[in-house]
């Protein structure tokens, strides 16, 4: 019996820590089912076997930080039927987008013995700032169930069930007590998209905002509430400037507390 033609899956990496693509390998129980449905054609972290494009589904991790990245991401787009960017780096520029708020020249001079070898852009930006993206999967790192859901939906030709509402709704559904209201902690949950599985509030820690801005983030109102808690402008700016510092909403809010 000839093998059914399976869709080809590719995983690409740009500037990132590899945590998001590792999430795919982390799908231990589901991995066998996954390779039963797709053909892993390009995934350097998992296999040296490389197949040429085009690919049916490409997962792209990492942000665009060098002139070479810009060329490479265009090539990836050209070879991919469906392109899904995964993680805070690929969807917002990641923690390395903190460079966007400082002087890259200065950083390079301080960090590298031979700054002349370094060829980099002055910004770290999202994949969607350079090519069109079919779906952006948030998180630092992404959540494995959400990743499976996106793959699953893509393979089955339906829309992924990835809510864009606040982290608060997930906290409440999970019966987790609000860190902001009950402990007075500075929490980004109300302006952050749900999806992590309530990792931090679930262990009594306010949300850091790994999943980036929710659909309608009222960051100004949250910042005012944080100020009323006694947080300084600097603290508030730092809260917004982390993994998703360069997402539109968080960047603007952070900038306004300079």
């Amino acid at each position, binding site marked *: 019996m000839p093998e059914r033609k399976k869709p080809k899956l590719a995983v690409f990496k740009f500037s990132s820590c590899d945590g998001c693509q590792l999430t795919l390998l982390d799908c231990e129980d589901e991995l066998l089912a996954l390779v039963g449905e797709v053909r892993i054609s390009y995934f350097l972290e998992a296999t040296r076997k490389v197949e040429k494009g085009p690919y049916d589904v490409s997962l792209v991790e990492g942000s665009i930080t060098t002139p070479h990245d810009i060329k490479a991401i265009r090539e990836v787009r050209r070879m991919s039927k469906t392109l899904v960017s995964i993680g805070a780096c690929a969807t917002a520029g990641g923690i390395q987008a903190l460079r966007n708020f400082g002087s890259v020249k200065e950083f390079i001079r301080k960090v590298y013995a031979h700054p002349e070898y370094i060829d980099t852009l002055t910004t770290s930006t999202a994949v969607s700032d350079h090519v069109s993206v079919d779906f952006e999967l948030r998180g630092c790192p992404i959540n494995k169930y959400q990743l499976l859901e996106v793959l699953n939906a893509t393979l089955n030709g339906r829309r992924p069930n990835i809510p864009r509402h606040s982290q*608060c709704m997930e906290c409440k559904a999970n019966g987790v007590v609000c860190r902001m209201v009950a402990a007075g902690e500075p*929490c980004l949950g109300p302006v952050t998209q749900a999806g992590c599985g309530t990792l931090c509030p679930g262990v009594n820690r306010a949300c850091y905002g790994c999943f980036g801005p929710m*659909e309608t983030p*009222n960051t100004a109102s949250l910042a005012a509430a944080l100020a009323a808690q006694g947080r300084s402008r600097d603290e508030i700016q730092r809260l917004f400037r982390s993994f998703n510092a360069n997402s539109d909403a968080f960047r603007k809010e952070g900038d306004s507390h300079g």
Partner: protein
Amino acid sequence: MPGVDASNGAPAILDKDGLGQLIAALRTKGYRVVGPRSADGAIVYDDIDDIEDLPAGLGDETEGGRYRLRKRTDDVLFGYTLGAQGWKRFLYPPRQRLFAARRQGAGFQVEAEEGEEAPMAFLGPRACELAAVALQARVFGDKTFPDPGYQARLAAAFVVAVECGAAASTCFCASMGTGPEVTSGHDIRLLEIKGQRFLAEAGSDRGREILTGLSLSAPTAADLKMVAAARKAARAGQGRVLDRDTAAALQSMPDHPRWDDVAARCLSCGNCTMVCPTCFCTTVEDVTDLSGDHAERWRKWDSCFSVEFSYIHGGAVRTEAKSRYRQWITHKLSTWADQFGSSGCVGCGRCITWCPVGIDITAEVAAIAATRKGTQG
């Protein structure tokens, strides 16, 4: 002191041991007992094994956007006002699988849901909370489209209500006519008076049956005086009032300037709807496995504060925070009456306490009421 006979329904005194016996009796009868516990800096309703699980000597302080657990100077077991969330999550779980299906030829075969849930016994519902359960029972008891799951869980549940002996600054059940006295919806009602002693009364036959088996004593005149004082304090101590005339009229004010004002503060986070014991909106999600051969349909709590919630073919109809807040408060306080015959708010104040920015339903109504003075009769 010799025990009293509770079978005639007369109020009796139940002490700490008696309460322990009550919990044990419910467990022996096969109930999963759910009651207050202290966890993560708040009172939450969770499974209770015995009386030691109850939050002795703990109270709560609430304000708009602020909740703090406090040590009390006494050792009362129900010295807090309300748990962080109500009983909704037990009667109406945040995620429910409606059905599973397997592909069969060109169609699919629906698989039966298996597994009986143990009946629950609720230890501690307050008057406002029972009023909320009654409101949701009406919503889910629609003649044409009842929710069998909700109805079955509620019918099986045994309710040991605990009346309030004090109120919080965010409470306003008195202005909604839903409390603080417990008048219906209970099998047993308790009121804690000093020293972990309770006035106990049956509200149903099964309540009477269970009470009869416990060691009870007759209330003294001093006990009854304390009961009356506690009821009075719970009424007098409420920190909020809702202007019900203005509340009912909200549906005639879609263009009120206050909506812009509140929209500037509202985070659209949905906390208010999640903690509200009467909010019932859900979304339905279909999921498939990777092969596409197996599908499930899930019902999940949703909120009128999410954009997706108002998605109708072609787009969302409530794209602005202003229209989402207006929808919530107008439905809750005004159009709910057209739909279900009463206000949708029971005055528990949870939406005030658990709003991260302290938006206060009573204050929003008061602000609108202030603009009506003089312009309307």
